């Protein structure tokens, strides 16, 4: 478990014993996941994972999207270094963008605004000039590499977190209990706040209309159907 997560978990003086256990568990599980992620990331960086060797075929190889990905991948190193391994985020982001892209294109076709949208994308792609083909190739390679990384990171991280929780029956029980309890409290709080706001809103309008404020809301009068 990482040091920062451990220190944060120890600052539980204002919580009762059960909540402290839950906080430790969550902090520990996150720490466990982060540790696994860092180890995996280092291992993959050292090995310089080759997407070609994994025989992963990109699920989505739209040339336009791949060209944009290639352009992003060639951003200055300072920008790329913000993420330790840019490829780790390329695939999830590209997949999400692909779904939005497809849906948008579909709606655009149905509503007849496709030419309008092309007015935005074409100038950008045209500005790439002769680089467009090379950037498309770079984007496709990064996309494939990102997919390899994403799958491995997801599988290993989930394994790590679930393994951590699974080590203790008592902690697993606490997670279930606290999750249900906290959810129930939050829902109740929202409902109470909503009901209080109902009364305030109605009171304000009744005052504006010169009517008396009602102490409680009306009860529907059942009729014979």
């Amino acid at each position, binding site marked *: 478990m990482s040091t920062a997560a451990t220190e944060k978990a120890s600052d539980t003086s204002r919580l009762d014993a059960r909540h402290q256990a839950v906080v430790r568990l969550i902090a520990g599980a996150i720490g466990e996941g982060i540790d696994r992620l860092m180890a995996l990331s280092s291992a993959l960086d050292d090995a310089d994972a080759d997407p070609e060797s994994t025989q992963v075929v990109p699920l989505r190889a739209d040339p336009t999207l791949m060209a944009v990905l290639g352009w992003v991948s060639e951003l200055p190193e300072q920008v790329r270094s913000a993420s330790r391994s840019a490829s780790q985020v390329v695939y999830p982001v590209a997949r999400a963008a692909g779904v939005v892209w497809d849906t948008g294109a579909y709606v655009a076709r149905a509503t007849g605004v496709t030419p309008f949208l092309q007015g935005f994308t074409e100038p950008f792609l045209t500005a790439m000039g002769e680089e467009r083909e090379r950037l498309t190739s770079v984007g496709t390679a990064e996309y494939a590499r990102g997919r390899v990384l994403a799958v491995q990171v997801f599988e290993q991280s989930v394994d790590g977190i679930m393994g951590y929780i699974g080590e203790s029956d008592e902690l697993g029980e606490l997670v279930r209990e606290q999750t249900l309890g906290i959810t*129930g409290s939050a829902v109740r709080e929202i409902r109470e706040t*909503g009901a209080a706001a109902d009364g305030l*809103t109605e009171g304000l309008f009744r005052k504006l209309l010169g009517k008396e404020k009602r102490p*409680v809301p009306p009860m529907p009068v059942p009729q014979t159907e």
Partner: protein
Amino acid sequence: MSKDDFHILQDRSAGFVSRLLAYIIDVVLIAAIVAVGGAVSALMDRALDAMGTNLRVEMTVIYVWSIPLIIGAYYIMFWSLTGRTVGKWFMGLKVIGPNGQPPSIGRATLRFFGYGLSAIAFWVGYVWVVIDEERQAWHDHMAKTWVVYDYSRRKSGEIYDDYRDRVERPS
């Protein structure tokens, strides 16, 4: 009304804010369903295209026309079966007919079309709740329905007790 008096609201007519929040939750949920449907349609379109079958026009027509059907089915089904949509369940609300039970399919259908009428007049039909004596919107008047508070009277923690009882009780 303090929060200690919360339980007295049970079965009384719900106000504008709670209903608005429930409505927003439902709209977001329906938008998500429609978006997923759009993505699936787009994928099917691509797959069919790859197989040499171009049904783009037909699929677009089906998708566009299915949207109001999905919205109608969502509301009418939930109202007539349980009196609650997901949004209303979350906010602790329930739709009832004149007999105090969830509305019939016919009444729920009428209420759904009343939604359109309430919206057409710049949503005045919805806002009407704040000045109506029985807290009914226009569509409630049309279909003779009421939206009432229907809270779980269980306190926080008892939900888990129920869960544990169900899971651990020997059969």
